[in-house]
């Protein structure tokens, strides 16, 4: 779709995540790592996903069949860091932007007024609101990551691809006299990628041919979520199962026939 307010961004570095759905077991380690790394306080309503903070969630997909034909898959969903983010252009106070090399969509907590217009704009539900004051149980506050700001009640937040790790990797590169825009593979990876026990999550610069993701995204099994909407996510998925790939977007019957 071409929107009236769409702004396309081009960067020399494009941090990209490739998630191999066929390797994902839905163990949830990535979710736990994300929440520990990014100072997400325990929710007062832990079983209510609609009222708690999750930067990364896992959807369970099924092929709708029964018996031996039944199949299921797990789809982890971080922020898509869209190339054409539907959220950034709508923010009235420039609290979310896509303007830094790497293409990570930022979220500026001290500037967010909490109007939630960005949440209404995002079709992936990657954005969540701080409905409650963040409270850490006694002792747990000592485990807060010092490089990640804690957020107050009343602001929107989302996955940042562990942006603080990117900052750290760039600083280290500068210290070694290397170009911070040409980081080596593995020099910067988010917490979820680091913890994944099956290696389902791969991370790197899609613009750098030395990085694995640059070839993975060209796989015939690669796809992105809701590509028809034109958001151009920087998160790609891989699956050799056709029904999984078809579930990534909406198709009306006629289109299904053509694509088939």
């Amino acid at each position, binding site marked *: *779709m*071409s*929107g*009236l*307010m*769409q*702004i396309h961004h081009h960067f020399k570095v494009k941090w990209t995540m490739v998630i191999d759905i066929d390797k994902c077991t839905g163990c949830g380690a990535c979710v736990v790592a994300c929440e520990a790394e990014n100072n997400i306080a325990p929710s*007062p309503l832990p079983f*209510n996903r*609609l*009222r708690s903070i999750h930067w990364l969630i896992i*959807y369970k*997909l099924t092929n709708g069949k029964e018996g031996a034909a039944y199949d299921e898959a797990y*789809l982890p969903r971080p922020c898509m860091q869209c190339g054409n983010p*539907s959220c950034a*252009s*709508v*923010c*009235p*106070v*420039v*609290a979310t932007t896509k303007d830094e090399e790497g293409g990570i969509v930022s979220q500026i907590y001290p*500037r*967010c*007024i*909490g*109007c*939630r*217009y960005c*949440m*209404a*704009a*995002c*079709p*992936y*539900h990657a*954005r*969540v*609101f*701080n*409905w*409650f*004051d963040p409270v850490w149980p006694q002792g747990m506050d000592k485990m807060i990551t010092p490089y990640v700001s804690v957020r*107050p*009640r*009343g*602001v*929107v937040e989302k996955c940042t691809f562990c942006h603080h790790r990117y900052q750290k990797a760039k600083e280290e590169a500068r210290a070694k006299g290397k170009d911070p825009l040409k980081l080596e593979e593995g020099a910067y990876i988010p917490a979820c990628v680091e913890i994944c026990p099956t290696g389902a999550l791969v991370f790197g610069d899609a613009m750098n041919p030395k990085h694995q993701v640059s070839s993975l995204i060209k796989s015939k099994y690669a796809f992105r*979520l*809701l590509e*028809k*909407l*034109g*958001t151009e996510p920087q998160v790609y998925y891989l699956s050799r199962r056709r029904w999984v790939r078809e*579930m*990534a*977007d*909406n*198709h*009306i019957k006629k289109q299904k026939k053509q694509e088939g």
Partner: protein
Amino acid sequence: MKDSKFIPEGVERCPFPRFITWLGFLGLILLIGIIAAIKILWRGLGVTGLNNYFGFGLWITFDLAVIALGAGAFFSGFLRYILRIDELKNIINLAVIIGFLCYSGAMMILALDIGQPARAWFGYWHPNVHSMLTEVIFCITCYLMVLTIEYLPIILENRQINKSPLCKHMAHNFHVFMPLFAAVGTFLSFFHQGSLGGMYGVLFARPFVFRHGFFIWPWTFFLFILSAIAAGPMFTVLICSLIEKLTGKRLVEFRVKELMGKISGILLCIYIFFKIIDTWAWATGVLPKMGFTFDQMYNEVYGKWLLWTELGVCGVVPAIMLILPGVRKRSFLLHLAGILACVGIVINRFVFTVQSLAIPVMPFDKWHVYIPNWTEWATSIMVLAYGAIVISLSYRYLPVFPQERQLN
């Protein structure tokens, strides 16, 4: 009466104790709303029925609806002061007061709705010129100032206040410059009514509301302006008739109401014509390109009945009723058409705000249902009580209706 020296000359008002009882009743409703508002500000939006899927809910629907219905103020002002339709002078004061109440009420609700009310001024400090919401923030706040300036001379005309030479001259001079304020108000109001529609139309990843358009303005921009100026005048008429019913007096000639009905009718016809074309183009063009069908936009809760009610019963029907002089002449039918038109606009704002967020965009997601809780209802009703209090005080102490003496 204890307050008789404040009541405009030559008119009768109910006994003071009855008036105080009425204010006390409204004050009680206001108090419940204030308790809810304090709870929300103290404990945060977690106490409301909103959630991560429904970031917008009853409050935004309420705001959009009252802002659309309050459009009677700027549009009547435009017709009265710019196009010089003189008959409207008999209802313009009420239109201004309703506009002021709708906008100030919407601001109160917005102060509760945003998660960080203390940062509301960031809209001016860090404006994003690409955001329709920035434009809404600018225009709503500026237009509220214009409405305050338009309301001020009516207050200054109170019998006691007007005894002060300064107030008298101020009131006179405000009246002299009123066409200027009306023009500024028209400009501001046109743009933010449109931007409220544009706010939804630009959401290119939300199939229910996304629209193409002209230059930077999606079609919803123009449709929201048209619907607001179509329903606004009839809302003013409905409030006027409600005041007449409650007070047992004739306040505005029926001819004026009929004229407002005619204006609404013509605009409603234009609006509904374009709205039907827009809906058809959306269903057959926009949705298929996004991979959706028309049927996928509705479920058993947010059903197609909402669309048919909005476009048919509350769109085409009142539009036809209001352009027929024979129908307009009958008070009951005029008011019925007005109620239908206003309900239609409220449904429109509701579906754009809530239904659009209920629809699953990712194929493996599911429909969600939003149910506002008591804190949202109480604060919304609080604004209605606030409006009723201000109108009651204005009616009792200010010369709002120039024809009142002549008609009673």
